[in-house]
């Protein structure tokens, strides 16, 4: 098992270059799927590795669930263990379980709260206009999902732009983007190194819905205008740090992408380009992460199965 069991904890870092470059070079649909998949695998492997470290490291503590034979010196020589690392892993594992539970619970609370709010409206219309001056538009997941748009939001868009907005929200619902958001959220709770993936996926989901909306209304500039007008009508934030050096936020990047030719025209980057290299790094990192946690897992299972039959105990 050795050092390899630590790898899945830090290998999520290999996904960062692709998270950064996916925005510029991949179709947002591909980016969202790829990055969510990466986040899920890397998150699972990292948790598995914590479990293994915890189990092996605390094998000496009385009351642990392992066979007594684990405490024997012969076995301890075969299975590398470190009590401090084991205890730290257990603490980290508890923190991870708590973080995942809290993230999942909060996600559920928001979604079900919004669903219940809309339940006050009878009928089965999928677009619900709510009388409220605050400009907002949300896709509320459910069976079926519904779109909640405030009158304040509709007021700042013309009829064509409203169509683009509704098409954007419909794309969120039909593409089940909420699931991607939940997966990356849980992954980020499992391992903080996966947080940049979460941001990248939520941006990709918006871009994906923008592209679908542009296709539905047949006008990229119109869609760009709808996004821009809606954003300008919404709340503004005071910048942190020097405004002149601030990187553009997600909304200007979405508008710029809509004003550029469609993402399908660019194609998959060649392997020797920066994106190709980043994709390769991410693929290798994920594979190594999966293989090393699988390897450690198999080693542990083998020991567990062999020991009870061993004359050592």
């Amino acid at each position: 098992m050795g050092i390899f069991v630590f790898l899945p904890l830090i290998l999520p870092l290999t996904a960062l270059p692709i998270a950064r470059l996916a925005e510029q070079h991949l179709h947002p649909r591909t980016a969202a799927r790829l990055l969510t998949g990466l986040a899920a695998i890397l998150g699972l492997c990292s948790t598995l590795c914590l479990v293994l470290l915890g189990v092996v490291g605390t094998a000496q503590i009385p009351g642990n669930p392992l066979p007594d034979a684990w405490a024997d010196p012969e076995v301890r020589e075969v299975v590398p263990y470190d009590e401090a690392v084991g205890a730290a892993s257990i603490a980290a594992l508890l923190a991870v379980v708590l973080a995942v539970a809290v993230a999942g619970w909060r996600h559920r609370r928001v979604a079900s709260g919004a669903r219940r709010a809309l339940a006050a409206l009878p009928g089965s219309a999928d677009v619900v206009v709510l009388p409220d001056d605050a400009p907002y538009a949300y896709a509320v997941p459910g069976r079926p999902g519904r779109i909640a748009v405030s009158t304040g939001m509709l007021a700042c868009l013309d009829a064509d732009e409203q169509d683009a907005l509704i098409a954007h929200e419909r794309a969120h619902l039909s593409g089940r983007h909420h699931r991607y958001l939940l997966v990356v959220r849980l992954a980020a709770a499992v391992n903080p190194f996966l947080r940049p993936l979460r941001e990248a996926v939520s941006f990709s989901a918006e871009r994906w819905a923008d592209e679908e909306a542009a296709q539905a209304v047949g006008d990229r500039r119109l869609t760009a205008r709808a996004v821009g007008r809606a954003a300008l009508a919404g709340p503004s934030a005071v910048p942190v740090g020097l405004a002149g050096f601030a990187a553009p936020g997600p909304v200007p990047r979405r508008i710029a992408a809509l004003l550029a030719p469609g993402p399908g025209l660019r194609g998959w980057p060649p392997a020797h380009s920066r994106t190709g290299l980043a994709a390769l790094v991410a693929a290798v990192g994920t594979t190594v992460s999966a293989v090393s946690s699988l390897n450690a897992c198999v080693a542990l299972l083998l020991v567990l199965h062999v020991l009870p039959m061993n004359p050592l105990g």
Partner: protein
Amino acid sequence: MTQGVEGADQGRRRGQGELEAALFRVLGRAGAPVTAAWVQENFDGELAYSTVITILSRLHEKGAVTRVRDGRSYLWTPAADGAGLAALRMRRVLDREADRDAVLASFVTALSPHDEQLIRSLLAGTEPAGTDRAGAEPAEADLTGREG
């Protein structure tokens, strides 16, 4: 990144949304059309009469309550119509949950002043009537410059 600002703004809006919801509940308990003075008396806390009127009027604008004139004042009732009520409930969820945008995929997120500037110059070229693209150049240069 914009946590502090959003937090302060949310606190203010939360107060408003909570008050609206509280007065709405008082109206619901009345069981019959009541005056603003009755609402003020039965509200669990201290509220100026003018505040009660303001909030009731806001609820009325949103379609959550209806009112009928009774002499010199109004009698207020919760609206049977669902849209106002749904808006009120939705607003409470949005005001209370800091991570709503992460769950519900908000159409747009808060902008920094720098973003606003960028968007204005990007949009300058998209107006159906206007053909002025000059404003868009610096913004695009700025965006592509980020790639490195």
